[in-house]
Every structure is written in C-alpha cells, then in structure tokens.
C-alpha cells in the first residue's frame, strides 16, 4: 500500500523539532532513516498527522572520541558506524554488529538512534548499547537528561523516551574486553532468531569479567547477569545459569524452548571462541 496522508516538517534545529513535537502531540512522528517507520506507514500500521523529518539537525550527527570512550550522534547511519575507525578501536562490538543489520541499502539510510528508539527486541544495536553500558542523551521540553541503556529498553518497541522527547546521542564507554557477537537468522540480513552481543575480559584463557546480552529471545535486549557471573566458574555453569536470565518468547521462527536452547549454543560458541583466541 501507499503511506496515508500526513503533514510534513523539516526543522533545522533541535529546539524547533522539540517545539513541533510538543505542539502536535500524539499525532507526531519523527523520521530519521525511515527504514522501520516507512514500512509501518506503507502498511498503514501508523497514521501520523505530522511527520517531523530530523535529518537536518546537525546536533544529532557525528562520531567523536571522548576521554572515556565514544559519543555517537543519533543520526549516524549504520554504514558510517561500521566504517568508523574510532568505533572499531574503542567499541569493536558495534563494528562487529553492523554487517548483521539488514542489507547494504538499509544500512546506508538507517540510523543508530532510530534503531535504539525503535527498540525492536531482535535488533542488534539495542543489545550492543546495553552490553557496552551506553548512556543515552535525551532532549525534551525541560532540557536534557541521560538514561542508561539498561533502563531505556522497556519492551517490544517500548522505551523510556517520552512522546515529546528526542534521542540526541549515546555516550559509550570504551569496550573493556574482547568482542562477543553471534547471531542466528534464517537468511543473511533477517532479524535474529537469537543473538548474543557482549564482551569478555580474559586473563590468559580464563574469563575474569564479562557482560552477555541476548537479543531476539525476550521482549527486549536482556543482560544475562547470572550467566555472565558464572563464566568465571565454567562455561557449563554459565550455560545453566542462563535459564535464570532469560524469559524467551516464541515467534514465527522458533518456540521459547528452542530460543532458550539457541541462546545456550551462542553463549558456548562465543565464549569458547574468545578463550581459544586469547590462548
């Protein structure tokens, strides 16, 4: 189908965009890359009264190295994230995840902030943001606030972002360990049936610290705290502990039991590979 009719605005400043959002109320939608929003419009799942195009907002662009890590503007395209030397050096997990996001045509337009704000439970970047301890900078009528990625994702397409707020950037600490990234999908570019994003700090071949985040299994990216802690004991202990972390939800691809199984498989594969690589 074709998108329903809407009014269109292309503000040039963040303040102007915030004013438009506040004035329009519930009918307003922001469009950045549009790679999830436009399908929803074309399928008439959404009928916004006003589309606010934020592609002109310079405040939302750029990748910068900071003292503690990196700062990624919300409008950063997936392709730019994947091509950035700063990202590859400071947060290699993000660089590892980008090739798994949809297809080249989508990665050229889809944005980092858009993926976080969309909060698809099977998407790669929300899981990476949680795994890396990102802090999300949000602008609203009352000024700026920061929310930890861990608290930002609430459920399927649900976040801490208010209707009158705009995600501006993510501040991401430098990655403290080796990259763990694996995902299982039926075809290249599809959303994950189950995926793992995380890092592991190793002392020779022993994992001393790790953070494992699973996506595609639950209603949101889930930090597997019990499994992460148990990694210091053994892989078997971590795989068993994972049952306490996950509450898988069946979808068209897999039952909850299968997702639970696949998450264990990913945990074993990723951690075994990291240990082998370090040895």
């Amino acid at each position: 189908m074709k998108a329903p009719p809407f009014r269109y605005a292309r503000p040039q400043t963040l303040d102007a965009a915030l004013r438009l959002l506040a004035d329009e109320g519930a009918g307003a939608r922001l469009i950045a890359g549009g790679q999830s929003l436009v399908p929803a419009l074309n399928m008439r799942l959404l009928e916004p009264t006003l589309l606010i195009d934020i592609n002109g907002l310079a405040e939302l662009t750029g990748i910068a190295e900071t003292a503690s890590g990196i700062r990624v503007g919300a409008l950063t395209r997936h392709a730019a994230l994947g091509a950035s030397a700063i990202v590859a050096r400071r947060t290699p997990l993000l660089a590892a995840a980008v090739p798994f996001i949809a297809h080249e045509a989508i990665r050229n337009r889809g944005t980092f902030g858009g993926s976080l704000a969309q909060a698809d439970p099977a998407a790669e970047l929300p899981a990476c943001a949680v795994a890396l301890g990102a802090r999300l900078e949000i602008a609203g009528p009352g000024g700026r606030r920061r929310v930890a990625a861990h608290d930002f994702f609430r459920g399927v397409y649900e976040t801490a972002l208010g209707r009158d707020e705009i995600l501006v950037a993510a501040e991401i600490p430098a990655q403290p360990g080796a990259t763990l990234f694996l995902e299982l999908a039926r075809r290249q570019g599809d959303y994950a049936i189950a995926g793992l994003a995380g890092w592991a700090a190793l002392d020779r071949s022993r994992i001393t610290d790790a953070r494992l985040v699973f996506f595609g299994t639950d209603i949101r990216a889930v930090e597997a705290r019990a499994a992460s802690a148990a990694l210091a004991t053994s892989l078997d202990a971590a795989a068993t502990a994972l049952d306490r972390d996950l509450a898988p939800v069946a979808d068209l691809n897999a039952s909850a039991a299968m997702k639970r199984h696949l998450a264990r498989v990913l945990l074993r594969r990723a951690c075994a590979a990291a240990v082998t690589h370090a040895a």
Partner: protein
Amino acid sequence: MGRGRLPRATFGMSDAVAIRLTVNGARVERLVAPRLNLVDFLRDELGLTGTHWSCEHGACGACTVLIDGALARGCLVFAIQLDGANVETIEGLTESGALAEVQAAFHARNAVQCGFCSAGMLLAADALLRRNPEPSREQIRAALSGNYCRCTGYHAIVDAVADAARERARRKP
C-alpha cells in the same frame, strides 16, 4: 538526503511542495505531496519505470536506486525528503555505461528470467563490486541477500556477478 533548502514551514497533507533534485544527471523540479514515495515519483512523474514496486515495505529490493551514490530502497523514502539530492536509477546507470559489464554478464549467464528483480540486482551487484572487486561466492550471496528473485534464479545471478568481477579486473589497466 535533503539539503534543507525547503523553507521551515510545515506542509499540509494536500500541499504541493516544490522540490529540486538531480535524477540521472538531469536537474528536475516538481511539485509533490508529502506522502509521495520516491518510486511513484520516478515512475509517475518522470516516466522512469525501470525502478519497480513490489513489496512496498523494504523487503524485496525491486525498487533499489542510488541516493547520493549510496544504494537505497526507493520505497522507504519520500520524494519530499530528497530536495537537493542526487538520485540515479537503472536508466541513468545503463546510459552512462556504469553497469555495462554486469549487464553483459547477466545476459551471457541468462541471469534474467522474468526480469522484474533485475534492475535492483544489477545495482546491488555493482555496489558490491565497487567496494569489493574480488568477492567470493559467499560474499556475492550476502550482498544480494536483500534482493529477491521470485523466479529463484539465484545461481545464474551469482555466476553472472562473479563473471562481471573477472571482466572488470581484466579491463582494469
């Protein structure tokens, strides 16, 4: 992406908004409603029917075009967003010869059955070869994974892209 030359006003859903952009090297100026999709703009306003509509939600790749030199889904962008942009379609890229080796290889390998996916396949294949001149068959398959061929003629298409890569390497001085 637009260049912000539009005035700052909000446009009504029935407004005809002037946009200026470059399509296949030619300057184009048209009035568009906000909801007008790039694919409909190309086909209905400009008569460029090589860009195809199929799934209309970004899954199939039949509407693949280049926007500012980068591969994009035509169905996932509105014309009003492209004020100031540079759009290239199968027509322009055929005329300039940019796709010549890939097209010749598709022809030689019979990698065109019904032809509906071909424009998108050719653009995606060319984008791959520009960033990776010597792709493996796995890399070709990965690069074309966002373009569906419902005749399922994938083997011949992968063969053709591999041939085109060799031909480009041979011609390179």
